[in-house]
């Protein structure tokens, strides 16, 4: 039942996007997310949407996976729409008791929720096309300059790798303990919130016990193999920026340029 969680799942492939350097993908994702905030009208949104569709097609990720990554956040998206619809002042088009719906509210709600959808889709595209190991490798390299000011870049990356590595293991463990307790008549789904929190104890205690045990075993195993942090470590897969990455940066800069042009031309139209 927990195996269906889509959070940050890698989708193996050999597409153009998959083969990009993880650093390129991380930087591009950050750039792209900031550039979404340049978009303010329907034309700009359409351009962003087309760009995302282009990336999805290029990465050959099935649409169903993308939609599934949106599933856990649909409540937040729906809330955003509702809040904007009912709270934005402007031309009133419908009155519902104390609530008024305005034209501007509808527009803003639509655009804001689209913005959220874009953010989620593009960041899940990053995790769909980049294996967790590559992702943390990329982060480690990107954080390297900050080492000078005392940021433990390697240790942070190692912690992230381990955390990511153990998500499926802990999910599996949760699933198993849950089933074992359900087989003893435990109930995780009904009752009020306090009751439900109490019912979680038979799940959480064993889970913590086993997480600590695993951590202990892993630490021992790492030390037994002479692990001692980041200095002088070499890696099997060296990251390398290739022509492909420059092409990706070029395309992204083109998009940002177009969005800036659209924004400026709109401003000048208004004036």
């Amino acid at each position, binding site marked *: 039942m927990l195996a269906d969680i889509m959070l940050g799942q890698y989708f193996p492939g050999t597409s153009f996007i998959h083969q990009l350097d993880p650093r390129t993908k991380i930087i591009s994702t950050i750039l792209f997310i900031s550039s979404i905030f340049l978009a303010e009208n329907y034309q700009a949104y359409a351009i962003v949407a087309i760009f995302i569709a282009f990336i999805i097609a290029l990465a050959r990720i099935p649409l169903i996976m993308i939609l599934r990554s949106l599933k856990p956040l649909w409540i937040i998206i729906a809330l955003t729409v509702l809040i904007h619809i009912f709270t934005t002042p402007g031309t009133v088009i419908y009155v519902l008791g104390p609530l008024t719906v305005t034209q501007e509210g509808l527009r803003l709600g639509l655009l804001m929720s689209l913005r959220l959808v874009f953010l989620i889709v593009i960041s899940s595209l990053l995790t769909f096309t980049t294996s967790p190991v590559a992702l943390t490798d990329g982060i480690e390299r990107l954080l390297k300059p900050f080492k000078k000011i005392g940021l433990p870049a390697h240790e942070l990356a190692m912690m992230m790798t381990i955390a990511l590595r153990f998500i499926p293991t802990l999910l599996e463990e949760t699933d198993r303990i849950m089933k*074992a307790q359900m087989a003893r008549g435990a109930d995780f789904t009904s009752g009020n919130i306090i009751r439900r929190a109490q019912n979680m104890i038979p799940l959480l205690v064993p889970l913590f016990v086993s997480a600590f045990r695993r951590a202990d075993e892993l630490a021992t195993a790492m030390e037994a193999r002479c692990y001692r942090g980041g200095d002088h470590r070499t890696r099997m897969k060296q990251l390398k920026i290739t022509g492909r990455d420059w092409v990706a940066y070029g395309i992204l800069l083109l998009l940002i340029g177009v969005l800036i042009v659209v924004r400026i031309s709109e401003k000048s139209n208004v004036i």
Partner: protein
Amino acid sequence: MSIILKNISYVYMAKTPYEQTAIKNINIEIKHGEFVGIIGHTGSGKSTLLQHLNGLLKPTTGMVSVDGQDINLKGEAAQNAKRSVGMVFQYPEHQLFEETVYDDIAFGPRNIGIEEIEVDARVKKAMNFVGLEFDEFATRTPFQLSGGQMRRVAIAGVIALEPAYLILDEPSAGLDPRGRDEIFGQIIKMYKNTGITVVLVSHNMEDVARMANRLIVMNGGEISLDGSPMEIFRDSQDQLQAAGVDVPPLTALMNKFNQWGLEVDHTVVAMDAAVDSIVTAVRRR
């Protein structure tokens, strides 16, 4: 009185690239009073199959019924039918959580609404079955026991639910030979004394052969053999090998004797019987 599986198939993570059919077209009936051993290679679908027996997994297709009741329906009757199937998972000691052994064993019975006096009786009985002294262990914390003792507490927690069918997934995994013999000894004792139906999963052929009166061999998500251990060791050693499980050492030895021209009975599963058979064969010469 039986558990019936009809055309059971189960697919993990359907409609993703990770989609995997774990078991397909399983048809078995587990009758009351049987001691069924299920063996198979890692990934042969044993554990998936087990979880269908008490409704923890819903089959992608097919139907599971316990004592005539479809357990994947909603309602009281299905719930009760599920409860008559007790399930001991692999490494069951990982599910312990209470402060005392007593409370952990009482967790199940209390959940299904049994009165405290009856709970007390059941805990005592369950601890007795798994060979834990009530006076010595009841008030201790389960986390400071040895591995074998923790496992017995966990098994007692399931036995205290008084299931008609007891399912055990690799109950001896990770125990030393002595712990293993103790656990198995207690399971056999309980089987003989209470007439409970036991389904035991293991990849150790020797254990299963010694205890079970029916053997199911799984391979690639399907049942490749189903019969008494003796029949299977006698007639189907090729299929056993295909399924990636070995015949017990004793059977292998007896087969070797036969190949060398010493006519012994290669269907025996007990050590004494094997010795007798060899002695007679040698005398006959």
